[in-house]
């Protein structure tokens, strides 16, 4: 049995951090640390001496980690974002899933792969959840705008809800636009005129 890997996860959001840590611990007997706050990030990581650092690709504090790629002393272990040789495909998959990994030079691919597979799957899942959440929010916003537009039409034309919606839909079709766009235009116009 080989030594457990030391992994640092950089993540501010507590729930997301826990989800990643749990997944990594399930995947193997790893030593996982979470760093939440960006202050002194590179120093904190260096103090942990990890084999692997995982960070969300959309995290703006990522550039602070680039300092790790410059070994500043003879005792420092150089760190690379793994792209070479066998790990090249893994790196591409990681970037697509939204995770960037910094790995100590010389870490064997067979030790790296299971960890990265787990991390990639987890980040992909979180990314999907985020985009679904954003989609739900957007749908909700659109509903609100359409409801307001319907209300405006019902009031000024003294017609029912179904009829008002049919009018909106026809206007949208005639203009080749989305219903929500027509509704938004109506709401904006009424705000200007009232």
């Amino acid at each position, binding site marked *: 049995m080989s030594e457990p890997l030391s992994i640092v996860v950089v993540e501010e959001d507590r729930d997301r951090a826990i989800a990643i840590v749990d997944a990594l611990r399930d995947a193997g007997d790893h030593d996982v640390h979470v760093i939440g706050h*960006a*202050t*002194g990030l*590179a120093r904190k990581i260096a103090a942990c001496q990890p084999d692997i650092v995982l960070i969300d*690709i*959309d*995290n*703006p*504090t*990522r*550039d*602070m*980690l*680039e*300092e790790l*790629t*410059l070994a500043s002393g003879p005792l420092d272990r150089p*760190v*690379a*974002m*793994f*792209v*070479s040789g066998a790990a090249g495909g893994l*790196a*591409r998959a990681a*970037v*697509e899933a939204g995770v*960037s990994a*910094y790995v100590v030079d010389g870490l064997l691919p067979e030790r790296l792969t299971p960890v990265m597979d787990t991390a990639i799957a987890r980040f992909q899942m979180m990314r999907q959840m985020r985009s679904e959440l954003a989609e739900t929010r957007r749908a909700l916003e659109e509903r609100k705008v359409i409801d307001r537009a319907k209300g405006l039409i019902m009031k000024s034309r003294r017609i029912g809800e179904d009829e008002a919606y049919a009018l909106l839909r026809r206007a949208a079709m005639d203009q080749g636009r989305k219903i929500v766009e027509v509704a938004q235009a109506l709401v904006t116009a009424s705000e200007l005129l009232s």
Partner: protein
Amino acid sequence: MKMLRLPIAYMPLVDAAPLIVAQEMGFAANEGLDLDLIAAPSWSSVRDMLAFGRVDAAHLLSPVPVAMALGMGGVSTALSAVMVLSMNGDVIGVSRRLEDLLRADGHPFDFRDPMAAGAALARVAPDGLTIGAPFPFSMHVELLHRWFEATPLAGIPVTIRTVPPPLMAEALADGEIDAFCVGEPWGSVSVEAGYGALLLPGRAIWSFAPEKVLAVRTDWAETEPHLLGRLMRAVWRASRWLANPDARTAASEILSRPAWLDLPPEMIDRALAGRLVVSSRGEERHVDRFVEFHGGATGFPWRSQAKWIGQRLAQRTGGDVTQAMARAGQVFRPDIYRKQLVGIGADLPGANEKVEGALHQPMPVPSVEGDVILQPDAFLDGHIFDPYDP
């Protein structure tokens, strides 16, 4: 004409203007291109998106592709800098605490004299300084090192720490850093937030510093030469438009939109006009050519510029300087620039390299096309870099 959608990564900065203007003012559309400009959260993200094929071109810090060619920074995909997008445009700023100390020391915040500013700063901070810069491989870091070497700052302990530009003002307020070197609008943002004062424009240290480049994957440049040519012509025409003083107000308005920089146009105009508010007292300072997109062969990627960067990186990290310069020189591509921009009015000098730092006055030089008048490119201390005799 059917538009071809081309994904390009950029960082939301004033000097992303040539790409944004190319899209917004129709220069890209004239070439049949619809630029899908993707704002990146970090420079490492810009680099990775380009290296791993998520985008086909990028607005990139000029030292990044050079560092990659030297095997630094973990990602080693071969990139080519096909044109320089902007010259200068950085500012050096200090915390309010240092501002007070400097004023007590009699510093006028003239935003002009790098020697006096360096000497004053070394006097008021004898115990040392921590300075924030956006990325380990950046013109910001190179300018800071040149400034240290030429002034009494060489005599105090100075640490450069990477801080993403949007977090710079906060890091200054928290005392994480004492000073910074950053691209606009982030220096002005720090001043507006009341956290700092601007000490020097980047160009006071090197008056013709290639700041950002248009970078592509070298293999993509070889397989898609026609597409690359269309992109380069669109960007070159956008930079020519930006150089027209009458376009400045419109440019500030465009960049200020929520889709791009999402800041008041007045904040962006400071950099474009070279009129910077340097302190919370509202002192305004004027800098000629604060940031430049066009003219004086600005877009021409001189191999000597890349060699200078390569030499500096190798000297600091202990690499083989001769080899580093040779490799760096291959990253900037005057050959592609000449081939793609011939016949449209771009300045095409006769040479691919020049002595960096020798010009104190504008100087006409032999050219293949255009009347090429090189702009002053002097360093603060008269340093000369001869690519053939470094």
